[in-house]
């Protein structure tokens, strides 16, 4: 087990290094840099000298190798650097928005669990009936419906229903307040994006619940439980569902890692000032240091979530360790 963990941990290094090389090179391929953006952005003409001083200040006049070494060295020391656009430390910029994105991600995950597990269970128990078809169609629709459109429809629905019932249309608040300061305000802002994303992510988990439960229900011990004359409710809840949950939990875990990146579009629709929006802005501004840092943060979260899932699996199933 110890060996397996060490082996998997060592594999993380090339992945992170490769991601760093990839994002670094991709960004250097983008035509124009932050100095062009900032000084000549409005179409004004700037002389070469001003641009060069600006580049020297930003450190992008150095050779690519030096820049890359700086970036990697910083990353190793958990120093993400300073945003080229705002001049603030990147950890500060991320810290400002991390709470919001994390909260939406957690709420979306909770929403997806609340939707997925009961629906998947019903679908498996009633396999190949119209209920099953309905649930499967509902979950495939979750993957098919773009979350940004669902967002627009939710906002539209809120406007129309509040208009109808109270006479004045109501919009979710724009300003973010932490949940411990003003829970009502906070929830009324973040509930909607969480539902829009949560529904989408519930789709995969629903299908997973259904398929693993179908497998488990064919196991001998379930037949034994039936033969003993246990109530169907007890068989499902105690015997089947508990054993079917592992892959479902895995899927939810992996999705959570993806959520941090997947919020890009949702945050745009709901006008939320989160990490996704910060990312789009940083690409727009050619703020290399910020984009690099954000990509590395997302990739690191993703890689380590995967690692934890793998180790967890290996711990449960010795066959994986030796393959």
């Amino acid at each position, binding site marked *: 087990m110890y060996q397996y963990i060490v082996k998997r941990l060592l*594999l993380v290094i*090339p*992945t992170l290094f*490769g*991601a760093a090389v*990839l*994002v670094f090179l*991709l*960004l250097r*391929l*983008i*035509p124009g840099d932050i100095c062009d953006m900032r000084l000549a952005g409005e179409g004004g003409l700037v002389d070469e000298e001003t641009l060069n001083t600006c580049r020297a200040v930003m450190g992008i006049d150095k050779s690519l190798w030096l820049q890359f070494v700086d970036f990697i060295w910083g990353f190793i020391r958990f120093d993400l650097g300073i945003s080229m656009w705002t001049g603030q430390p990147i950890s500060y910029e991320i810290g400002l928005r991390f709470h919001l994105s994390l909260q939406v991600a957690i709420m979306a995950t909770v929403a997806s669990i609340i939707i997925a597990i009961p629906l998947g269970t019903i679908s498996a128990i009633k396999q190949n009936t119209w209920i099953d*078809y309905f649930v*499967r*169609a509902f979950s*495939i*629709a979750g*993957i*098919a*419906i*773009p979350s*940004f*459109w*669902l967002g*627009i*429809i939710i*906002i*539209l629905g809120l*406007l*129309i229903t509040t208009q109808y019932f109270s006479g004045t*249309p109501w919009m979710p608040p724009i300003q973010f307040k932490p949940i411990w300061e003003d829970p009502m305000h906070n929830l009324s802002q973040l509930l909607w994006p969480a539902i829009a994303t949560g529904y989408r992510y519930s789709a995969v988990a629903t*299908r997973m619940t259904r*398929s693993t439960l*179908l*497998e488990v229900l064919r196991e001998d011990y379930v037949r034994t439980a039936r033969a003993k004359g246990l109530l169907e409710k007890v068989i499902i809840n105690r015997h089947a569902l508990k054993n079917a949950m592992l892959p479902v939990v895995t899927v939810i875990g992996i999705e959570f890692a*993806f959520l*941090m*990146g*997947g919020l*890009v*579009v949702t945050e*745009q*629709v709901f006008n939320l000032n989160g990490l996704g929006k910060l*990312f*789009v802005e940083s*690409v727009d501004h050619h703020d290399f240091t910020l984009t690099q840092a954000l*990509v590395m943060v*997302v*990739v690191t979260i*993703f*890689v380590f979530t995967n690692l934890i899932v793998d180790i967890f699996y290996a711990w449960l199933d010795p066959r994986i360790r030796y393959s």
Partner: protein
Amino acid sequence: MDATSQTIPGEEIEEPAVSKPWLVSLLDLIRQQPLGAAGAFIVIIMVFLAVFANLVAPFDPIVNDYGSMHIPPDGTHWLGTDQFGRDVLSRLIYGARTALVVGFVSAFIGATAGLVLGVSSAYFGGLFDLIFQRVMDVFMAFPLIILALAVVSIFGTGVENLIIAITIPFIPRCARVVRSSALSIREIPYVDAARALGFSHRRIILRHMVPNVMAPYLIMITAFVGQAILLEASLTFLGLGVQEPTPAWGLMLQGGAEEYAESAPWMAIFPGLAISLAVFGFNLFGDALRDVLDPKLRSQ
């Protein structure tokens, strides 16, 4: 790019079922895979609308008509008009063309490149396989939309660049799946036999191994078409994809649909429905295809 030439991968797939009189097998298919049949139906209608868009669409999708802006759905404009007086239905029909071209081209190229790379990686094994897998790991660790965003900011917007942006993240995803099926095929004696006969690596890979991983490949293609349509819409919505005046579904949602959502809700509702229905159709169809082609996965 011609939309008609791209419909082939989707059509091909239905063939294996036909051995009995076609009507009987069609009814069989509907009974066994009602959701898949529904998906196929949606896909076929969409392909038909895309191919014959110029005959079906009642209005020109591009010409502005300032005399008829924001008209709610009625007898002439079935789904209303947008802020430039363009007919929403016509733009939806032409938008199907854009969506399918982007969907099929990127799914086909992405899956095919993944197929060749995945099989080669499994065939050669050793150091090549190890390095290749690490490279795939890197690409897989990038969230799809972030990779696409980076590609678009390098190459710029527009349909061709959008296709590149969507294709690249597909390659490792397909390669990974194909590689794992190819690994088991490598152990089958006919590959040894082919090697003993002195065939070139290229011939063994393309003629002996690739045909045997067709099932996962076809499954990946159909899954990718749906994802590509969704990704195209998302990137276009973010302003990174197709540009005006080309009719595209994501663009219809971006261009003012949010601003006018309250006064002209039809502008926001119908393009979203079109995207959802198209992706829904491809996903249902892909699921059914997986059931038919890969009995091992049937319970999933």
